[in-house]
Each structure stands twice: as structure tokens, then as C-alpha cells.
């Protein structure tokens, strides 16, 4: 596995095209293009609407939940969906709708935190590797190669097992397994801009390499990295939920989608489907939303890579 720059996006070849100091008109244009994409592509519009709902549930979940997600009521255990309990109740009579709503915040926080972490570390490592080359590049790329030598979910399991069984470590493990992806993209994008006109101009006017890295390269590859973020968000949610499904990280009474599906799993065989179905659906919708949103964002930022 050599780390040759993979097929890259529209590379600004002429410095005129780049004109990185984004003026107000440029921003307005982007906004116009964004509106065009959202309205022109109903799927992206739909994904955006879903996104608003999910974020709403994450913020207001505990406030709008009809019941206390922890309050058990053994008299009302294992009831199928009804007017009082829209999603039914679980084996100790807790309201599943409330638990699904409240869980949104935790699931989203884990995913956002891990993606933000890998964005910062993987992005910076990749830029440094692609811009400085030499030893930095060799070491960073070797780390990526080694991580990629593991089946990613298995490595995440191993990391959580070694670091200790906590939510923080789920975030760290998810970030580590995503590291190669971010590092490679950042490296490729930084590398092709190494000798670009605006970088040479900055060099000529006496900027240090480190300053160029931060003020010229970083802002220019930001859009592509942001797209990557929303594309991997779905995977991060799945990864974290998978880990908690096998009993890692989140501890039982806490409402979290993965662990709720795991708790409901044993009732599937006897026909109580609602315990696992609703948290599973929530999980699916969230992942689906971020995948669609990622595709839509890519269309806005990088129309040439549209599929």
C-alpha cells in the first residue's frame, strides 16, 4: 500500500481560479448554489429536513419525552404500541418512545465527538504529511497503513477492551479507526497544493512554511474535509451503536439505541418486536440521513465528483 495521492477533486491549477480570500459575494454565491442543490435535489432537501428533526430530538428530547425514560412500571411491562405508549413499553415497563427520544443526544454526541476528534488529529497529521513529506510523511502514512491492516470494527473492539469499557473510550476508538481515511484525504489534498501558485506567492512574500500550512493550505482543503466529516458521521454512529450492542461502553439503564436493540433482541423470538424495532429504526434513519446529507454536501462543494 503506497500512499500515492488518490484520485483527487477539482484541483485549482491556476492561482486566479483559487482566489482563496472568500469575499462576501463568494459566500453569497455558495449560498445560492446550496439553495439550488437543496431545492433542485429533493433527496438532499429531505435529508436536510431529517437532519433538523434529529438535531431537534437531540436538543429537546428530554423535554418532549412523554415519560421519564428511567421510570419502570412493572404493571405495564411489555405492552405493544398503543395510544398511551406510541412505541410500546419494555420488559420493565419503561416507555420506549421516551427512551428513543432521550437516546438521540447521547448517540449523536458520541458520533460528533469522535468525528471532531479524528477531523482535528487526522486532518492535521495528513496536512503535515502531504506538505512536509519526508520522515513526517513516512511515519504518518505507516501509522495509517497499520490501522488499515485491521478489520476496523475488530480494532475498535480491541481498543475499547484495552482502554477500558467507557463511553469516552468508544469515542476514542471510533476516532482511531477513522484516522486513515482523514489522514489520506488531507495528505492528498495538501500534497497537490504544495507548489500551487498561491502557496509560492505566500512563500515569496516571506511566510514561514508553518504559517503557509495554517493560513494557506488548511483553509483550502477545509471544504473537502467537511464533506468527509458528514460522510463518516453515519459510519461513526453505526460503529458506536455496534460496540454498545455487544455490551461495550454504555451501561444498561442508560437509554442508547444500540443497547436498546440489544436488550430487545431476546424478545424478538417470542414476538415482542417493538422493543428492538424502534431504536433500530431511529439508528437507521440517523445513518441514512447523514449518508444522504454527505452526498448532497459533496455536490455543493465538489460538483465534479457527483455520481
Amino acid at each position, binding site marked *: 500500500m503506497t500512499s500515492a495521492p488518490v484520485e483527487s477533486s477539482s484541483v485549482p491549477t491556476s492561482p486566479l481560479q483559487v482566489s482563496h480570500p472568500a469575499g462576501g459575494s463568494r459566500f453569497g454565491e455558495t449560498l445560492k448554489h446550496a439553495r439550488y442543490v437543496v431545492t433542485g435535489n429533493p433527496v438532499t432537501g429531505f435529508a436536510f429536513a431529517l437532519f433538523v428533526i434529529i438535531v431537534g430530538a437531540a436538543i429537546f428530547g428530554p423535554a418532549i419525552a412523554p415519560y421519564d425514560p428511567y421510570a419502570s412500571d412493572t404493571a405495564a411491562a411489555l405492552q405493544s404500541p398503543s395510544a398511551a405508549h406510541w412505541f410500546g413499553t419494555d420488559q420493565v415497563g419503561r416507555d420506549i418512545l421516551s427512551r428513543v427520544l432521550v437516546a438521540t443526544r447521547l448517540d449523536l454526541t458520541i458520533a460528533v465527538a469522535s468525528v471532531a476528534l479524528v477531523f482535528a488529529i487526522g486532518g492535521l497529521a495528513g496536512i503535515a504529511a502531504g506538505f512536509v513529506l519526508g520522515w513526517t510523511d513516512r511515519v504518518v502514512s505507516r501509522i495509517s497503513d497499520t490501522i488499515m*491492516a485491521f478489520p476496523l470494527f*475488530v480494532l475498535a473492539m*480491541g481498543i475499547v477492551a484495552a482502554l477500558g469499557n467507557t463511553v469516552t473510550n468508544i469515542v476514542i476508538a471510533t476516532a482511531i479507526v477513522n484516522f486513515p481515511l482523514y489522514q489520506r484525504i488531507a495528505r492528498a489534498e495538501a500534497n497537490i497544493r504544495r507548489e500551487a501558485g498561491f502557496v509560492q506567492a505566500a512563500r515569496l512574500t516571506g511566510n514561514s512554511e508553518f504559517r503557509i500550512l495554517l493560513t494557506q493550505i488548511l483553509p483550502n482543503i477545509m471544504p473537502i474535509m467537511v464533506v468527509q466529516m458528514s460522510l463518516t458521521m453515519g459510519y461513526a454512529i453505526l460503529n458506536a451503536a455496534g460496540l454498545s450492542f455487544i455490551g461495550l461502553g454504555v451501561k444498561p439503564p442508560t437509554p442508547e439505541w444500540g443497547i436498546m436493540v440489544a436488550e430487545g*433482541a431476546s424478545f424478538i*423470538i*417470542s*414476538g415482542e418486536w417493538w422493543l*428492538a424495532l424502534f431504536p433500530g429504526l431511529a439508528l437507521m434513519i440517523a445513518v441514512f440521513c447523514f449518508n444522504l446529507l454527505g452526498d448532497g454536501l459533496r455536490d455543493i462543494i465538489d460538483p465534479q465528483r457527483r455520481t
Partner: protein
Amino acid sequence: MLQTLAKRLLTVIPTLIGVVIVTFLLTRVLPGDPAAYFAGPAANAESIEEIRQSLGFDRPLPEQFISYIGDLATGDLGNSLSTGQPVLAEIRARLPASAELTLFGLLLSMAIAIPLGILAAVKQGSAIDHACRVLTTAGVSLPVFFTGLLFVYVFYFLLGWAPAPLGRLDIFFSPPPDITGFYLVDSLLVGDVETFRAALAQILLPALTLALFALAPIARITRASMLSVLSSEFIRTARASGLGTGKVILGYAFRNAMLPVITTLGMVFSFLLGANVLVEKVFAWPGIGSFAVEALIQSDYAPVQGFVLTMALLYVALNFIIDLLYSLIDPRVRIEA
């Protein structure tokens, strides 16, 4: 060919070294007390100290690394606390179950995804193209453990078509003689059709669950690579020369479009081996994934380490085979190498 093989084998070595270092780091250098992990939750200070000395955790790190490699070379992965058996023996006994499930799932998903991708590319913009897009998007969005449970509910509880999701074989059947370790193959080898049918019934749902998960990347790359090949000049020439559609698509376009698909298989395997753990838990499949999950929950540390190492070695080997396959199909790669 032999020279190519040797050269490729050399490129695997740095990866192997990396894998061994990472598994070593996962065991020794992390915060927390590895001796306490290995001793298990029921240990007292004395037994932890005993384990620390017997495993050599009181010695300097480089020395520990050397003895770790020595242990690996002799196949010593430690003992499982819960069963008392050597981890290597446990993993060896359970590996065929996991391998059978993963391979069967992969075959199923290729059997569905490749024709689907080809059809979607040939009839671009048609209903089947849209169906392909929906299926691939759904495939990557569905948590694999959720699909599995859904299948169990529909096919076992509602329809009663599938047997109870409890392992590789119904308890009324005795497993076939151990030849390859794959129940499907072994039962056929001894001509036991009844057992074959029972094993097939058990494996179908978990394999389908895995297949649905692996479907998306394979179908997507098949479609994309068929599209790009179909618009190339040699296809136009073949068509202009009056070759039949079947010959052009399968004989000319597909063979060329296969290369990116095979490259993607590496990534698909990474997904499959991870998803395997979750599917095994849902279907109580007695493979190495469920073994590791059980050990994880009981804080039994050695089996988890052995599992991570085994999976990584397996994955490196699979990537190596894919590499070889690639150079078998595409003569150009062979020359470059």
C-alpha cells in the same frame, strides 16, 4: 509468477510487523493494569502480583516485546479464564464456523450485487438502476445487527420458514465428520443430504444479513466501473464490429470492469469481518466473534487479544490473496510488479 509471489510476500512483512506491534501495545502499554485484566474481576492483590510476575509485566518493555514474539511464534496466546482452555485451541475450534459464515455471506452478496450492478449500468436510468440505488443506500444505512433481528422476526416468528436462530445446527442433528470444518461442505462430502439441508437452513439468515451489508459497496463499484468501461472505445469498436450484446457486455466489458470490483473486495472483507461479530451475537453462532464478545463481557482479556490478532492476520492474508488475484486477472499489473 514465483518471483511476483515472493515480491508481494515481502510487502506483507511491514504490515505484519505493524499488526504485531499494535496488538502488543493494546496488551501492555495502555493505562490500567494489564495484570489485573488478565487476572479477571475476581482476583485479589496477591493473585494479580503473581500473574504480573508469571507474565513478565515487571520486566522492561523491550524485553516483554521479545518474549511476546516468542510466545506468538510458539502459538501461545494465553489461556481463557472462563473456559480454562488455551486461547489458540478455542480459536482454532471456532474459526471454521466464522469462516463458513463469512464466505457464504460474501458469495451470496456477490451473486446478488454483481448482476445487479451490471444490469443497473447497462440499463442506466431504468427502474432496475433506481432499485440498485435504493438497495445500496439502504444496505449501508442498516445496522447489521438490526437487519439480523428483523430477519429473525419475519422469517422465524411470523412466517416460520427459518429455524430458531440458535447456532449452526439444530440440536436433533449431529454435526458431520470434521473434514474441512465447513458443515455445508462436510455433509455433502459424506453424502448426508439431511444434515446439509439442516445446516443450510441455519446459515441462510445470518449469511443473508451479512450479504445485505456487503451488497452496497460491491453493487456500487460494479455499476460505476461497468459504466466507465461501457463508454470506452474498445466497446464501441466491438459493437460496431457486430458482436452480440451478450458477448460485448460479459466477454469484453465485464472482464475489464472486474478489476475495481476485486480491489473493493479488500474493503468489503474489512466490513464483513467486523459485521460478523455482530451477526454471530444475534444468531448465537458459535464462531470466534461470539467467543470474543463473551470474553469481553467477562473482562477475560487473553481471548480478546487473540481474537484481534487472528482477525488482523486473516485480513492481511485475504488482502494478499486479493492482490494475487488482481495480477492473475490483469496481465499489466504483473509486468509492473
